[in-house]
């Protein structure tokens, strides 16, 4: 399903600030996989996501999604197969548009965009029904602008927008890092339930090692632009945060939170 073959990405090539962010990375993931990604700052986690989503190009290697070579596709074209939630809750929605208008944009991802009505009554009913499942009261606020929402509500809405058009891949870049603990818990629970939708493969970056082991079915650790640990199945079930730290000499305090 997702196949990443030997990709490399260097920032500031030839300058004193040259930084090899991704260094010959391989990764393959299957339908239904929910992979959590950990690693200290500068390990290349976000760059990996940006390479997959097309925010930045790669210097070498290939990225395949369902055997389709995406390496050279522009960001917006890849987005048809990829749902994304950013760390900053402000980035996920158009703030001066209503909740239902935001949803309409997200749900017309695979449809042609021209002079059709932006939002039909049928779509509105559908959104309302689905929003109720988020259990945040958003279904009664569909005509409010998204700038009025709290961070947690916004991330829940963005998450819902990311999966509404049935993508093949869901990319979550520390999407709960800016939230308070209770909102983060709620958004993580929603993430779990959305990741179970059929055929979806989820990649989630987190700084929280405990969450990384508790959610999903696979955990990878990145260091210096490579994957240095890939846990799944029995070994992952028996893994604890303490063991991880001992085994991989993790020295970043932020990852222990």
């Amino acid at each position, binding site marked *: 399903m997702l196949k990443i073959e030997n990709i490399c990405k260097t920032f500031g090539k030839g300058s004193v600030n040259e930084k090899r962010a991704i260094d010959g990375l391989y990764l393959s993931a299957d339908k239904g996989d929910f992979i959590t990604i950990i690693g200290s700052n500068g390990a290349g986690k976000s760059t990996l996501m940006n390479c997959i989503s097309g925010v930045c190009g790669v210097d070498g290697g290939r990225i395949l999604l369902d055997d389709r070579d995406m390496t050279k596709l522009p960001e917006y074209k890849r987005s048809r197969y990829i749902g994304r939630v950013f760390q900053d809750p402000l980035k996920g929605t*158009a703030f001066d548009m209503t909740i239902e208008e935001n949803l309409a944009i997200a749900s017309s991802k695979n449809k042609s965009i021209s002079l059709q009505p932006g939002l039909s009554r049928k779509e509105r009913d559908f959104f309302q029904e689905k929003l109720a499942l988020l259990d945040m009261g958003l279904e009664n606020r569909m005509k409010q602008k998204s700038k009025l929402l709290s961070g947690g509500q916004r991330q829940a809405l963005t998450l819902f927008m990311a999966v509404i058009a049935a993508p093949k891949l869901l990319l979550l870049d520390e999407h709960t890092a800016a939230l308070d603990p209770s909102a983060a818990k709620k958004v993580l629970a929603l993430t779990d339930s959305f990741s179970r939708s059929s055929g979806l493969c989820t990649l989630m970056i987190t700084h929280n090692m405990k969450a990384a082991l508790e959610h999903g079915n696979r955990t990878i650790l990145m260091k210096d632009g490579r994957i240095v640990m890939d846990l799944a199945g029995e070994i992952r079930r028996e893994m604890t945060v303490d063991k991880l730290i001992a085994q991989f000499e993790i020295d970043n305090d932020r990852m222990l939170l």
Partner: protein
Amino acid sequence: MTLDAFIGNVQGSAELGLIYAILALGVFLSFRTLNTPDLTVDGSIVTGMAASVMVCSTGGNPWLALFVAFFAGCLAGSVTALLNTKLGIQPLLAGILVMLGSYSVNLRIMGGKSNVAIIKSDTVYKSFEKLVPSEYSALILGFLILALVTAAFYYFLRTRLGFALRATGDNDEMVRAAGIDSDKMRLVGLALSNGLVGFAGGLLAQFQSVADAGMGVGMVVIGLASVIIGEAVFGTKSLLRRLIAVSLGAILYRMVIAFAFNLGMPSTDLKLVSAVIVTIALSTGMIRKKGGGKNA
């Protein structure tokens, strides 16, 4: 001032205001919807004027002239958008470049003359006056055209394409994540914005029966003033209300200027007064923002 003169003044300002309202809607599309101040306007309004008078003076249909003016404006806006998205030139600078370049293009359209009068040619105002003989015919026609443009514009902003355009101004990262080409949206938006401006220019030229290459100076400021004054005075509660507010703002602006002339302001001070009005309007918006966090 006699009462008759006063009424005549108000009527004249309203007639002009109805035309400037279309310019204001165009500026609204770039400045508010796309969140990009677009200086192309100073050039594209004259492009619209020039296209309009050339069609009229060669005996063409004045309605066709307005369509050509719209299209010419679209072209000017497209160039700005392409300079910005394809060549990576900052939007403000791209607008200035097109504004500058279009001056020569406008002169070429007008056959090398810096102004072209169409006193003898047919215009939409003249043909409408034959249809509805009244001293208010220019007012009625201006209102009908503005109503039609506003309705079409409102409908457009509520289509899927309109949604995508509005979202691009809000947050283009989100738009790309939603599978929409944000560069294309900027192209469509700036083209339509300047299309409206060109249309307003075409109408203005027919109203005044003249096009002048120098008439574009400060038009973007007039558009901005109309948008800001309209929103401040008439509200932004819903999208439709906002569009109507912008139109009313343009009419109000003309009235204020006419009133200032009557009070004895020399017409040579007009540009300075316009600049000061917009400065005040923009800065009050900034002061309000400091109190209340992120606002549209």
